[in-house]
């Protein structure tokens, strides 16, 4: 099997990924293979670079002054940071949901339709919007109020709207950066159920500081921590059940048993 085909087994693969802010190395030598159509959780103490890694997957770090990277992030065998890659195109394949729900100050309908429209979607927009809202388990709650502002929804609904909005661009991968940290437990549960449903068709990578959430909702877990230079390193990566029941590394065990972090 050629190397290109091998990498196709993974949704995303990083090779010796190093991420820098100016002279500061925020993430050191990460080799991570994300399994397609599964939920991968990235956990670790705050400041360990887990969000930085996540945001490097769809090149959102490009906007941070002084950011640069070394190594490779492969997507369908293509290095996302190759000079001929257009970051705008990358984000159409790899969508993102943020920590705080951030719907546009527009109607619910427009929130979903906008991304598809700018990406040149020519099909039936009403059907697309309905499909995306249904897929995000929001349709029944908003179908009579599509003209209302996205900001009028509750926090949990807003976050599901943001997921629907991401789906409408037809991504392969959805990145979630602590998507439930601003939500109450019931809204959190709804999002987790939704993630499970979506993982049938999408690859989901979620950064969370909530270990229970990672244990409940993910198939694979990567544990990050800081080394002595304060750079983030990946300690352990494996199936979630293994990481939480039988961690191989002492540091992982300390963290999940609450002795550290």
């Amino acid at each position, binding site marked *: 099997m050629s190397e*290109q*085909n091998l990498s*196709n087994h993974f949704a995303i693969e990083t090779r010796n990924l190093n991420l820098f802010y100016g002279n500061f190395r925020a993430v050191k030598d990460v080799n991570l293979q994300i399994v397609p159509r599964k939920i991968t959780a990235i956990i670790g103490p705050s400041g360990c670079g887990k969000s930085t890694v996540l945001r490097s997957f769809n090149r959102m770090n490009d906007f941070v002054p002084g950011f640069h990277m070394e190594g490779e992030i492969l*997507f*369908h*065998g*293509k290095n*996302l940071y190759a000079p*001929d*890659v*257009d970051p705008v*195109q*990358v984000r159409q*394949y790899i969508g993102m949901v943020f920590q705080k729900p951030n719907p546009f100050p527009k109607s619910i309908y427009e929130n979903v339709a906008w991304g598809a429209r700018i990406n040149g979607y020519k*099909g*039936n927009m009403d*059907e*697309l919007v*309905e*499909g*995306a809202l*249904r*897929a995000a388990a929001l349709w029944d709650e908003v179908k009579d109020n599509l003209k209302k502002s996205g900001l009028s929804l509750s926090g949990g609904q807003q976050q599901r709207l943001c997921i629907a909005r991401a*789906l*409408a661009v*037809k*991504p*392969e991968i959805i990145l979630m950066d602590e998507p439930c940290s601003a939500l109450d437990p019931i809204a959190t549960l709804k999002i987790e159920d939704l993630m499970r*449903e979506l993982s049938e*068709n999408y690859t989901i990578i979620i950064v969370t500081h909530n270990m229970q959430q990672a244990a409940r909702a993910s198939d694979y877990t990567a544990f990050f921590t800081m080394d002595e230079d304060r750079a983030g390193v990946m300690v352990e990566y494996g199936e979630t059940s293994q990481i939480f029941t039988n961690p191989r590394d002492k540091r992982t065990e300390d963290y999940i048993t609450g002795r550290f972090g």
Partner: protein
Amino acid sequence: MEVSLRHLKRPEESALDVSRRLQKRPRWGEGFIQAFLFFCGAVSILTTIGIVYELGKEALLFFQMPGVTLLEFFTKTEWQPTVGRFGVLPLVSATLVTTVIAMMVAVPFGLGAAIYLSEYASEKARKVLKPALEVLAGIPTVVYGYFALTTVTPFLRIFFGDAINIYNMLSAGLTMGIMIIPLVASVSEDALHSVPNALREGAYAMGATRLETSLQVVVPAALSGIIAGFILGFSRAIGETMIVAIAAGAGPNFTFNPLKAAETMTGYIARISGGDVAYDTPDYNSIFAIGLLLFGISLVLNIISRRISARLREVYE
């Protein structure tokens, strides 16, 4: 679920398709827009170049005229370009006198207002007073000029009688001071506002009254920002034209007596250019020489002021 997902499904793509779709594509529109926006920013550079070039060029012509020397320009006390007297000092002295008077009004009142707004006023009072000060700052200077001539000067005549001229620097300076209060107040208030609350709480905890806290702790902590505000006010007063053109007098006069009429640099420029001034005459060129002087002074003051307030920001941010 399956039906609705139909629209959301991406068609199957080979690695090659994906790699091709990720390719950078020329975005002419984006590039054009960015170029246009950069041009918009560059207009300000062109403006600066224009100012420096035009002022410099014509001022050079002025200094090349027979009988004009830099030494004479900066040391002689008579300014009559049409008859060959080129000492700029009378204009400078008048500018200085009016500006100093203005600062004597604007500094105490501006600082007082800033302290009141930042340290004393309730949220409600601030909501009323701040826009009110902005309105004051929005009054055209020509209106202040009218006020100086028709109200302030007659008022001053009650005290000084005939010792004060109809056109005089005192009236212009006082009015200019009032005009500058909002500027000084707003810059100083920003500076006071940026002083961390912990400092105030520290002083209160030691039993200081509000006044003692304000004057002995907060004001010294914000001093550089406040001084930046003073300098900005000073620069504003030097460049102010309409008030002095209307109320201070027309005609250069080398005097430091504020009760007398005298013409400032800006007042001279306004008066000379008021008619149809013919190009390339001593009058015309002298406008540029004085303009250059004015530009230089205000530029230096502005730069100093910004340096000082930048240092304050560094301390507290």
